């Protein structure tokens, strides 16, 4: 079975009628979200918990997702960022979204899963490879915003351009990345 060709918006809109839609959305962004947390969190099982919490929150919010953009990457990574921020503040992984869905157990990973998270934590070459395919200005903007978590005003000041331009570069860059992720599988 090949990758689902529906846009993110279409997948999210279909979550209430098509049980495969959100799983396709999960598969599309799992590596990105795990990689995002694995670079920021020491405990590998916490990475899994955070990932589960983000997708649970996304599933809960999916019917309300409204965007003309084909990619929901910005939206999803914003959820990830907020989840991480709240978790760090309380020193515990947030679990509210999962509890709403009836998921009460913290994730227990087997050895293979731990290895895969470790690999993603040690290497973001899959993302670096993708970034290399973007125009330089977009790659810099996406890296600064998504990987380094810098604010739009900060990035704009560093790159000596306007915040609006940076927002456009990040948006276009993520759209392009999304299309690449949909076309190929990364190890």
């Amino acid at each position: 079975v090949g990758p689902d060709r529906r846009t993110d918006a279409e997948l999210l809109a279909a979550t209430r009628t098509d049980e495969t839609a959100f799983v396709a959305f999960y598969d599309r962004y799992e590596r990105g979200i795990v990689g995002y947390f694995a670079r920021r969190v020491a405990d590998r099982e916490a990475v899994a918990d955070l990932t589960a919490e983000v997708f649970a929150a996304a599933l809960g919010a999916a019917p309300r997702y409204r965007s003309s953009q084909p990619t929901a990457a910005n939206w999803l990574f914003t959820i990830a960022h907020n989840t991480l921020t709240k978790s760090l503040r309380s020193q515990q992984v947030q679990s509210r979204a999962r509890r709403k869905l009836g998921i009460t157990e913290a994730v227990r990973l087997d050895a293979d899963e731990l290895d895969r998270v470790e690999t993603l934590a040690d290497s973001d070459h899959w993302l670096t490879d993708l970034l290399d395919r973007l125009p330089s200005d977009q790659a810099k903007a996406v890296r600064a915003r998504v990987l380094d978590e810098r604010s739009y005003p900060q990035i704009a000041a560093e790159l000596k351009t306007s915040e609006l331009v940076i927002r456009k570069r990040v948006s276009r860059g993520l759209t392009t990345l999304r299309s690449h992720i949909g076309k190929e599988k990364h190890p």
Partner: protein
Amino acid sequence: MTVLPTVRRQIELAAQHAATQPTRSHGRIRLSAGTALAAGSVIITLAVAAAAIGLLGHSHRQITQRVPAIAAPNPYALGSAGIGRARFGQPPQTVARELEPLLGTPASGASGRAVRGICSSEQVIWSGLASRLHRSPSFGLTAYFKHHRFVGYSYGPPYAAPGTRVVRRGPILVTVRGLSLGDTISRARRLYGKAFRVTDQPQGTPTKPHLGSLPAWVAQTGTGTVFGFRSRPGQTNSTTLIESISAGDIPNTPCR
């Protein structure tokens, strides 16, 4: 291939449940007989669970304890524009205030005071972090200033003298991506991907060709570069080691 089948399974079950939830129509919820039965079961289950939590009291705490705590981001990460919250452009007092909680009072003098260093620089040195031999003087982190502004740093034994093993001591500093002294080039490549490359650093300011070059490395980050020296070439990526980590404007000895 899925990274976390366990998580995927949880989400898949939740998605199945969401897809079978009743939908709102004209402000009322339409339920089929089967769905109503299932919904009733869920409500009863939730009520029993809530009662159990209320009665037992410690159930909630136990669930909380099963959720792993997570580490805070490193406030002393070596970056391309500073160290943690100590950013290039700040005066020595501010830099010292940010770094002293971890590194203690500088060995170079009073807190927040830069002393005259090599190549017309001003510098603050924290010792006790790294040396090239067990019994050699242990230096560690040197922060460089120009006109009382933080312009660069170097973590590791000072200046260009690679060839002997680096000994880490005391608090270990790492880059934003997790690279530290003594790490292999292979690990650096895993951390930085194509943004990492090995290179050679010509010696001297200005460059003095007769002195040759020293083995070095550089990694591009989202905001600039971090760089440093590596152990001598001719070794494999898995045995060549990171010997220093620097960023910004640092002296390249010898200076005229």
